[in-house]
């Protein structure tokens, strides 16, 4: 829910979409994601989970909103300035997030059927 709110705010701030993102490397983005310790909140595979029960960027998440959230985050996320994380590096992480497969539907997971 928190992420969804962030997303909504970011959408207002910037109207650019995924196709507007600079070309990035998903491989470099994954490495950077680990180095920056983003996984402490967003999961090792950027899947969300734990306290934040939604992934950092759902499908169709806009590039500009993603960039805004890193530079001037809302809520508890730390800020990542250009001098610390370049726009190209942000684009790499965006490419990584965009490459992550969607979670399986819960109805297809036997262990979740008992709840």
């Amino acid at each position, binding site marked *: 829910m928190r992420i969804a709110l962030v997303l909504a705010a970011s959408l207002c701030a910037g109207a650019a979409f995924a196709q507007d993102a600079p070309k990035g490397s998903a491989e470099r983005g994954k490495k950077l994601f680990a180095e920056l310790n983003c996984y402490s909140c967003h999961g090792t595979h950027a899947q969300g989970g734990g306290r934040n029960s939604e992934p950092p960027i759902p499908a169709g998440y806009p590039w500009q909103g993603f960039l805004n959230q890193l530079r001037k985050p809302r809520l508890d996320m730390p800020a990542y300035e250009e001098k610390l994380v370049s726009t190209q590096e942000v684009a790499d992480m965006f490419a990584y997030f965009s490459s992550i497969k969607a979670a399986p539907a819960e109805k297809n997971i036997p262990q*979740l059927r008992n*709840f």
Partner: protein
Amino acid sequence: MTKARKSTQDDESGLDRRKFLKGAAAAGAMTAAAMTAATKVAQAAEAKPAKPEGEANMRGDSFIARPGSDFMLDVIKTLNIDYIASNPASSFRSLHESIVNYGGNKKPEFLTCMHEESSVAIAHGYAKAAGKPMGVLCHSSVGLQHAAMAVYNAWADRVPVMMFAGNGMDANKRRPGVEWTHCVQDPAGLVRDFIKWDDQPASLQHFAESTVRAYKMAMSPPQEPVLITLDIDLQEEAIHGEKLSIPKLSLSAPPQADERALREAARMLVAAQNPVIVADRCVRSQEGVEALVKLAETLQAPVICTGNRMNFPSTHYLNLSESRPGLVRNADVILMLEVQDPWGMLHGMGDPWKDVRRAAKPDVKVIQISLADFMMKSNYQDFQRFQPADLAISGDSQTSLVPLTDAIKRELSSARASEFAGKADGLRKRHRDMKERMKTAAALGWEASPVSTARLCAELWNTIRNENYCLAVSDRIAWPKRLWPTTKYTNMMGGSGAAGVGYSAPGAVGVALANRDKGILTVTLQPDGDLCYAPGVLWTAAHHKIPLLIVMYNNRGYVQEVMHLQRMAGLHRRDPKTAKVGTMIYDPEVDFGKLAQSFGVYGEGPISDPNAVGPALARALKVVKSGAPALVDVVCQLR
């Protein structure tokens, strides 16, 4: 003197210790078997006088006919205390010996602990599951210092613990050296800010009266730890020249809220359009759970459980705990039942700018039923920010639930009752939707390695779902509360109280000990950082054959602190990559499976493959069902 010398001769001629004790019993001391009957008599009838014993000890004596610690144990036995957790120490060596020989090491049984913090945390968890306190023995100085944080946890969690601290008051009798460093003028001063009561008895009769008083006070809501100091000389010197008696224990009835105040609360709740019930440390038993269900159903009011107690079944459609923000935002009347942080329920605060966000309507009416006014002290700030209430009622929440429900029924017209009944379908749908949201969220990262916390909790549930289960520590990882069907008070035992790290492992052992004889399977999700505080508790679990399924939630770090460091680095415009320094537990990584094995506990792991978790848990469950602890180390996502 003469008697002691005779005993020496007997001993040398082959009389064993037991026979010696029997001889002492013949002279008036009570055997363990006799004590069982005495316990019943003392609890059921008038105070039972103890016969004066022997003579004062003098230099040159070889034996003590009947030490004061025997009488101390007689007193403790009348309180029906089953266990005393302790790391052995010389300042209570006499009582220790009385427990194991004079008392036969039964009721209480001595639990060998490897840290005083573990002793108290075991007692903390035990008390929540058993519904009565355990004893703890420690040095008044170094032992109590070790124990202090766990005492604070128990205080914040409102749990009774009977603490006993050995101390030597008479400086003329202290042995030189260590005994001086282990003696304190005012031992309880160390913990007085977070215990309910303490005393330092100067005589055995004083001990009897203060110990029974302490137990009575600890058990009266708000329940809290208490501390009795055990003077070394009182323990070790022979009982002499005293007419001793043990006062009858008579627990106080819990304080019920004022009837007129409850009527006013009932009027407010019946008139409300969107009443919400918030239950924190509200109930202490299944009876309380059922009473809260009746209250909520009468009002058709949704319930938010904070997780510190299992107040309300997660399977009930009125349990909307995971929809808290919306419920609080739309509520016009909120009934808070023993809520530790009422202000925090109505507000949020940004970090680090401390900007306050109102989470509820400005005109929401707040009713508080709480005993907070009766336990508040000045120094430690666990009482939280002041929140004015429209109707503040002092009283024990559990005891007040039935009369409040009755008052609501009296206020409820048939038309209003019909309106309430009309809400049920909508609330049922909301509950179903909430559960579906949780399952959808649990699917995220399902195949991830390390294992997602949701997957771990789902795998654990599937392993134990046919058991009468108890999750020993249930406040730190949200997924069991979100997913698991809980119907019984004993299903979830809350958390540490003060978030003092190190509670989870010993607290779970204490819960498992209480559940051992009830046929309840105890499981726990054990954070790695917490277990690293005092892992010796694994040995205690193995040694005392305490069945407990320990599932490591091993994220290899103090991850909350990683997040704090990241935020600070961002605010300071510095490198966020350094957040692992001082926060992560790797290089080398701890092998908790081997750690468990080294303490004599079945251990498996580390497991990073999510598909390997279920089979490993099934193997460990077999061990636990055979009556022993088992540990499965699962390497998990960080949150």
